[in-house]
């Protein structure tokens, strides 16, 4: 069932507004950031929680940027290998809660003016969505 998840306001200042919306067909996403500045620090602290609808043996993340209607792959990485799980959340099973709290480094330091779309998708070994979020960043 293709439910429209609500848009979540992550942060809002005079110069910046960041929203996100889950693009996982099965569930909404819980996410917070500790910074709300157009000058992006080296790392930001995030908190994220989700309940696994599928088990994770392998996990990869794909980040796509959207600007002026165009969408370009920006970043992708393997987060979990099967033989040597790199992180605590690797190997978790369907139904388990994943909670991560800590720094995440972004690949850019200054936000372009205007609207920027960022799609972050985490996929498991079977290409099932583990986390999917569309961020919209409005910078004035």
């Amino acid at each position, binding site marked *: 069932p293709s439910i429209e998840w*609500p848009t*979540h*306001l*992550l*942060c809002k200042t005079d110069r910046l507004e960041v929203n996100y919306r889950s693009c996982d067909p099965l569930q*909404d996403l*819980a*996410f*917070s*950031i*500790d910074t709300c500045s157009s000058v992006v620090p080296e790392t930001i602290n995030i*908190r994220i*929680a989700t*309940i696994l609808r599928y088990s994770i043996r392998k996990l990869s993340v794909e980040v796509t940027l959207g600007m002026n209607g165009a969408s370009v792959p920006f970043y992708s990485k393997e987060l979990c290998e099967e033989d040597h799980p790199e992180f605590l959340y690797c190997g978790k099973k369907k139904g388990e*809660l994943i*909670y991560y*709290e800590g720094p995440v480094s972004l690949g850019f330091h200054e936000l372009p003016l205007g609207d920027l779309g960022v799609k972050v998708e985490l996929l498991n070994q079977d290409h099932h969505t583990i986390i999917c979020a569309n961020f919209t960043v409005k910078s004035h």
Partner: protein
Amino acid sequence: VSCEVTKPADMMCTELIANRSYSCEDLGLKEIPEQLPNITQVLDFSFNFLYSLQQSTLSKLKDLVYLDLTRCQINWVYEDAFGNNAHLETIILTGNNLLFLADRAFSGPHSLKHLDLTQTGLSSLSSIPMQGLGNLETLILKDNYIQSLELPSHFPTRNLKYLDFQMNIIQRISAEDIRVLKRVSNLTLILADNDIMHIETKAFSSIFFYTLDFGRCVNVSVILEGLQDASTVALRLGNSLDRDALPITPTMLQGICNISVDYLYLPYRHFLYFSADTFQCLAKLQKLDMAHTDIGELPTGLVQLNFLRELNLDKNKFEHLCNIRASAFPNLTHISLRGNLKGLDLGSGCLGSLSKLQHLDFSRSQIESADCCSKPLRGLSSLQHLNLSYNSKLRFHNAAFNETINLKVLDLTSTQILINASQGPFCNLHFLQILNLSYSKIDLNIPHILQGLENLIVLKLNGNNFESKTILEDNLFQQAPNLEVLTLSSCKLSAIQTKAFSSLKKLKHMDLSHNNLIAFSSDAFSSLRNIYLNFANNRIHIIPRDMLTNLSGQSVINLSYNPLECTCSNIGLLTWYKQNIDKIEDSEETVCSEPKSLAGSKLLSINLSCGFSTAQVVLI
């Protein structure tokens, strides 16, 4: 296809104060009912089903001040969940398994004061957002899985008064963990029921607490080590029956010498090598609670506790009152020795040095005294409250209370009183205001038994027996002309003579319930303006109208559990009753017994038409 009727929710929630306060507790609701008025201020929404809180969940209730969301199966609290509730002061989230609290979860309320996160499955302080909590007074994190007390630098301290970490799994506390508390004064910090194994030396120094509660923590030494140079009004180090703890040795308490503490609570602790040394560092205490500690005496050779005002020794094993070594506490105003586990011998003058003692509670301590209470209470000239209730047997001789002539309250409930005196035993108690003699088996035939009680305001005599089962016109109450409250419940009374209480001009409250009275004798009282008369559980069948018409002003009567007749013989009561329902207490249980066809019907529901020869009953 089956159909389900959706009840309008305003039919289901209970209105406690119109438009202001509602209880929707346990109604199986999955959302806030539309029908609640926008100006609702208090909402109890406990025991329903919400799953997640979002901005839209509560957005309509803009005037909300108090919100109880206990056990609503809430897992997720998203940003701005209370974003439209600017006036919200209290949020109770007890018993929800909170998987995520967004950073902006509590943004919105201008002045959130009380946040209760009891049993919410939290495992770290860092999962609790601090945004929007700047004005917090109370933060309750009871019964979670928090392992570290690491308070962040932006922890809200401005108005903080009460911080509860009871029943977490904190084992170690460092000075750095609680450094932000140096900004707070008079905080109550509850760390009870944590398995605290180590506190950094002086971690709590230079912080000023109102209460520090380390109750039910195993090792007191570890705690006192951390409290060196700290300051607190009250320090709670007690235990409970279902927790094992290390017994306290004199060495363990030495840490108290370097702590500023006024009240020390040690209930349910046990002592090892209990001696004068145990008290070495307690000299500056104002209050000491050693209830339930299995002690039978306080040690001899005690340091003088000159500042001690209150001493609680409840549920211990004292055999003789002199074993409390009263001379070590010359300035005591309160002693409690309730529920002593052995029969307590009051001795003679054991408390003689306590000239400032005002409150003395010996209740439930198996006391039997053949010569009470002059000798035992010798020297207690300041005593105002004396509780000897629920003991075995006391024998009063002449001038039984001549040492304690300033008594204001005397409670002898359920203690057998024997009087061996020519004078009234209370004749010295000219200042006594409250006397409870219920179930004391006191002999009410002794003349002048209330002699001297000219200032008595409250007298309770429940469960005692009057000769002839009757209150005569010429009775003992005339000795206490200022009585305002008199209770004679369960006294087996069958009659009250006319004007029996006419000397009690100030009487406002009279309890005659659970007797065998057959008449509602309002003519016994001097005034029926603003009086409360309880005649419940008697044997009254009929009340003539003229017994009722004088009840005026704010008077209230209770006639419940009487075998009232709902026939034309009783038309006087029945008519008056419906016109004066504001004067009736417990109309729910004020029911007919006759005729049999109406047995159990509320008087209020009876419509009786009585002609000369016919009677017609209509049940509304």
